[in-house]
């Protein structure tokens, strides 16, 4: 079964450093997403991406964050200057269609990257 692949599985970084989290979505999917889950809290939406541009973003996704699809397969999340509160599990997801009332498709999530900022 096709999978969304995320690397690395765990990253430790010093406060103020830049990190890039990488994702390889499912090849025939067109919509890409980043979510995060701070330990013990809800999974939160960060950003959605379609046709090489951001479709939606949450209040969390401020100027410190950026996304890119540098080639036909990778989808990256960059955090420019990490803060302690950025420590979380970051999930990449993709979907075949823009899910809505007329779709039966859910999202396929990767296994996540656990980011620890020290």
């Amino acid at each position, binding site marked *: 079964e096709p999978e*969304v692949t995320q690397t690395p599985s765990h990253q430790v970084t010093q406060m103020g450093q830049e990190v890039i989290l990488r994702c390889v979505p499912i090849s025939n999917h067109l*919509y890409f*997403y980043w*979510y995060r889950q701070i330990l013990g*809290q*809800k*999974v*939160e*939406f960060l950003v*959605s991406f379609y046709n090489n541009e951001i*479709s*939606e973003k*949450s209040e969390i996704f401020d100027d410190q964050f950026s996304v890119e699809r540098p080639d036909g397969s990778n989808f990256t999340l960059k955090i420019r200057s990490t803060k302690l509160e950025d420590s979380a*599990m970051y*999930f990449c*997801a993709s979907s075949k269609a*823009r*899910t*809505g*009332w*007329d*779709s*039966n*498709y*859910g*999202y*396929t*999530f*990767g*296994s*996540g990257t*656990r980011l620890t900022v020290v």
Partner: protein
Amino acid sequence: SQQGEEDPQALSIQEGENATMNCSYKTSINNLQWYRQNSGRGLVHLILIRSNEREKHSGRLRVTLDTSKKSSSLLITASRAADTASYFCATEGGYSTLTFGKGTMLLVSP
């Protein structure tokens, strides 16, 4: 903002029993989805129910949706130890983004 909120927060049952988890939300939705998460792992999509559907089945899973009460339930029949995980409902509104609840931790004992 719309939110999925599950109850109970934790559920402990024996193998073979049924497990029922509930989810409530606040605003109108396009669909509601249930996901499962094993400890420290990714989210696995289980089932999606559209706003114009009332019930859906997939294997041992049964999902209901009551849009008048803004609530959904997930029933897992004949549970197995391997069903032990956290279960999340997530609502999707008009912007193709998911809003997750805090989840129900299900423990199935052999």
